[in-house]
């Protein structure tokens, strides 16, 4: 799936096309991910940001094919290094998850097996996926634990997961990822459960990992600060869709979508005190019963300001309105019933 070097300098390693993952519940069909498109290039950090429930985690679970009942990928294609992940057999998928795609979750303890020593778990990864012999694997595991900054690694290798702090457990997971030098690392709220000084350590480590192994990272978080400091490109999600997609600077300097603007205005930024924070009125829509037009329409202040009628009736598409900057909003795209009030050079 590599793109010609003339248009893009790096190879695209992951391409998600029109992904739809729904949950078939008693109350109705929850459209958790509803037509998501994005790509990830080798070695980059793609930030996926949005409020809880907007579909970030389900998107990542879909890429890993870890969506369980009552969830189902109902449409779409996911190409990883040219292969359609959705067409792989179960065994091939398990191998892919170990060899080339790694993941870090918010609760590190949940990715570790509680009854095995952490050294064994890192060593096992090396034995299984790298064919390294048991004894050597243990020594290499201790090396990796040292590398990720576990204190007293020789001793800590014998610890069980519950004996580690949250930050240490997250380091062990990163050690496993390092062991594999994966092409893609999916990090889903990797620091949300941690204190800020520990968060800084872990983000630093993820950055190091990426530099050492040229691993691409999909970084999922609700924290715009982390996105600004870590991501190269950013996808903003709202109610199961990507509403804006651009390089990190324009996302913060010239956010186009009213939701992105509202989100940025509503965070209290350290060192920049404002008298009053901006507010996005109302609540995120119910994913079972979505608004017929733009999903943000019931909360959108700009729609009111510009008196756009079309928003309540028709869904806008994600459109590239200026180079490498896509937005899903009628303010920037014409329809046959209105002409866009805002233009972007």
């Amino acid at each position: 799936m590599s793109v010609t070097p003339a248009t893009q300098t790096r190879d695209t390693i992951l391409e998600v096309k029109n992904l739809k993952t729904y949950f078939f519940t008693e109350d109705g069909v929850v459209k958790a991910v509803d037509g998501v498109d994005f790509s990830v290039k080798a070695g980059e950090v793609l930030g996926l940001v949005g409020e809880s429930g907007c579909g970030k985690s389900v998107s990542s679970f879909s890429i890993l094919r870890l969506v369980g009942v009552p969830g189902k990928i109902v449409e779409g294609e996911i190409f990883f290094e040219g292969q359609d992940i959705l067409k792989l057999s179960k065994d091939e998928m398990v191998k892919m998850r170990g060899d080339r795609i790694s993941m870090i979750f918010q609760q590190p303890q949940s990715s570790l097996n509680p009854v095995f020593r952490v050294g064994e778990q890192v060593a096992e990864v090396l034995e299984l996926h790298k064919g390294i012999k048991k004894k050597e694997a243990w020594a290499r595991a201790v090396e990796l634990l040292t590398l990720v900054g576990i204190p007293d690694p020789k001793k800590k290798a014998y610890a069980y997961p519950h004996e580690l702090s949250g930050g240490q457990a997250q380091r062990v997971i990163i050690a496993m990822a390092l062991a594999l030098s994966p092409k893609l690392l999916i990090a889903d709220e990797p620091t949300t459960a941690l204190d800020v000084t520990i968060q800084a350590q872990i983000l630093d480590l993820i950055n190091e990992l990426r530099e050492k192994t040229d691993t691409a990272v999909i970084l999922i978080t609700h924290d715009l600060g982390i996105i600004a400091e870590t991501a190269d490109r950013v996808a903003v999600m709202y109610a199961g869709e990507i509403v804006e997609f651009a390089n990190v600077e324009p996302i913060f300097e010239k956010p186009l979508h009213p939701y992105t603007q509202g989100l940025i205005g509503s965070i209290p930024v350290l060192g920049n005190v404002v008298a009053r924070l901006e507010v996005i009125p109302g609540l995120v829509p119910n994913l079972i019963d979505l608004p017929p037009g733009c999903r943000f329409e019931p909360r959108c202040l700009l729609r009111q300001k510009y008196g756009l009628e079309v928003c309540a009736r028709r869904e806008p598409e994600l459109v590239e309105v200026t180079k490498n900057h896509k937005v899903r909003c009628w303010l920037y795209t014409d329809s046959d019933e209105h002409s866009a009030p805002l233009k972007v050079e």
Partner: protein
Amino acid sequence: MSDQPGTNKINKQADLLVVNHLKKYFPVKTGVLKRVSGHLLAVDDVSFSVKSGETLGLVGESGCGKTTIGRTILRLTEPTAGSVNFDGKEVFDLKGDALKALRRDMQIIFQDPYASLDPRLRIGNSVMEGLEIHKIGNKQDRYQMAVDMLKKVGLEDYHSRRYPHEFSGGQRQRIGIARALTLKPRFIVCDEPVSALDVSIQSQVLNILKDLQDEFGLTYLFIAHNLGVVEHISNRVAVMYLGKMVELADRDELFRSPLHPYTQALMSAIPIPNPKLKRERIILKGDVPSPLNPPTGCRFHPRCPIAVAECALKEPPFVEKKPGHSVACWLA
């Protein structure tokens, strides 16, 4: 110095709450016989005051003792030592009716409003519970007061007839606020009131808290681990580390010239939503040690980037280095 109207007025105002040498040790029991084998030093000799009408922010990482301070002030947890004076009354000496009267004046808002709401009670009834306990008005008055308070936090009449599970996290937090306010308290401990909320909902709740403070002249002790939130809402800010207060100053003074190396590290660790800003980050080594067995000397010394030999031996006192700016560090 501050862009917050009224800060100067507050500075001249009297202390509403004075906390002196407060300690709270939790006994740790081990073995089959559950013998007390040690103590967890959750709050270890902390002194500060809160001025009438101000918001004092209390920040620090999990387990540093913030919640325990709030709960001890309200006598939801009994202290090990020290005193709390509220508006001239010694809180720890109060009993019976006097204690009951105090409970009207001091309220708390929790991080998880869901846990504090009875799932079987309609919201209107939950909100008027306090009025019932204190026998204020008749049933009809109480219901009306509850509905009025719900309106003040942006909810509607009909919400009063619904149950907690029918609300979103942000709405539940507003209910928690309405509930804390029906008794017209003067002092409120806000314990991580927005930490569990999404950012767009956070700002709604923060704005409501500010509006209510202006309207009712409330005094807040605002506990949070998010420095951005604390900076936004506070007049003064105190920083805690492992059961100790390490720094206290006016908001702008603290954020512009933090003196304690822990405060400095904490600030530099906060990711800022500006990709152009390239900051030198102070990365602290290691985990936060256990309050069960805190380090000798300055409790921060094993992680401190500038510690000297003395720091491991002697505990630095909490002293006023500049007017209104106190810090506990040998090198500050």
